[in-house]
């Protein structure tokens, strides 16, 4: 019972039907903008109040992994856009290929995120009882990186403590926001990956063509939205105070 590409009674033309679906998806995305907006607002206020601690926190993220992930995610947006293009031009086998590429790139992103989270765990940067912004500097644990890097980090923390004696608590606030924001973003990616998996199954049966491709388009919109969230998260979380470090 797949009524693909059929005109429903409440619409006059297929174009109108499609346009309505796009409009509905955008209404949902508007609520998503405001959903993430609340977190961005919390970030802005706290960053303004505790800029020293937020700078220290930002410099402890892995810039290489963050940049690589940005490239991966934007590439996945390109393959998603290409999947929509392939569907609307009726290239059925290409739809499946591009959707699979998108799913793979999305999984790579999530994999890198896991590596980053593990790193934060090893460095005692997960908010909670064991959180210690100076753990790496104090312990000189080999998982923390080269001694030369740790020396700059030690100097940075020492300077920061003069400005903000409650650095540990405020840095913890930064990492709470880091995990909250990237975690919510990752949750959206996981949901997106599930949707992509479903799309691939449908596309493999050749369900999408020039007349019927609304699911590809709308899930595409969702995927691009998640990409946009990351486009803002990346500079705000990873790049705030790089020039000081």
């Amino acid at each position: 019972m797949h009524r693909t590409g059929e005109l429903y009674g409440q619409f006059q033309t297929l174009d109108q039907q499609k346009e309505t679906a796009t409009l509905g998806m955008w209404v949902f995305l508007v609520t998503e903008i405001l959903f993430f907006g609340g977190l961005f607002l919390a970030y802005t206020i706290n960053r303004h109040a505790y800029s020293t601690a937020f700078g220290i926190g930002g410099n402890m993220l892995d810039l290489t992994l963050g940049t690589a992930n940005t490239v991966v995610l934007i590439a996945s947006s390109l393959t998603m856009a290409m999947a929509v293009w392939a569907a609307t031009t009726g290239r059925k086998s290409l739809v499946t290929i591009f959707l699979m590429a998108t799913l793979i790139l999305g999984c790579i992103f999530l994999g890198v995120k896991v590596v980053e989270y593990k790193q934060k765990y090893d460095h005692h940067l997960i908010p909670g009882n064991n959180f210690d912004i100076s753990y790496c500097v104090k312990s000189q644990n080999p998982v923390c990186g080269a001694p030369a890097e740790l020396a700059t980090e030690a100097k940075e923390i020492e300077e920061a403590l003069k400005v903000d004696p409650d650095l540990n608590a405020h840095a913890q606030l930064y990492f709470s926001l880091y995990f909250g924001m990237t975690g919510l973003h990752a949750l959206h990616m996981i949901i997106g990956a599930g949707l992509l998996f479903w799309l691939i199954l449908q596309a493999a049966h050749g369900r999408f063509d020039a007349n019927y491709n609304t699911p590809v388009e709308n899930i595409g919109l969702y995927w691009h939205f998640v990409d946009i969230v990351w486009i803002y998260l990346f500079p705000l979380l990873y790049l705030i105070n790089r020039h000081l470090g």
Partner: protein
Amino acid sequence: MSEHIVSPKIYAMIFLALMVGTFLTVFAATRDFGRVNIVIALGIATIKATLVILFFMHGKYSARRTKLVIVSGFFWLAIMLGLTLADYSTRHAEPSRSQLNQTVPSRSIVS
């Protein structure tokens, strides 16, 4: 309104622009521009987001009604950010003259 199909060539160009933006923002972050750093970072991010919305998400080619909804999302976001930040940024205002003249705060009399 018939559907507009964006060619892969345009997608490739947008992707290239997004890549350039990404590396530019990382490069700019390592230089010290003082307070302008954050402006550059958010400026590039906004250009990137606009490109994604206009081309990858077909915002440029969608119906005017859809465009209105897209813009409304950012309009509401601006209200949320703008009004809340206006509040927070004026919370720590200096005490007024009448507050300074009050030698004994009324609260301490009650307790």
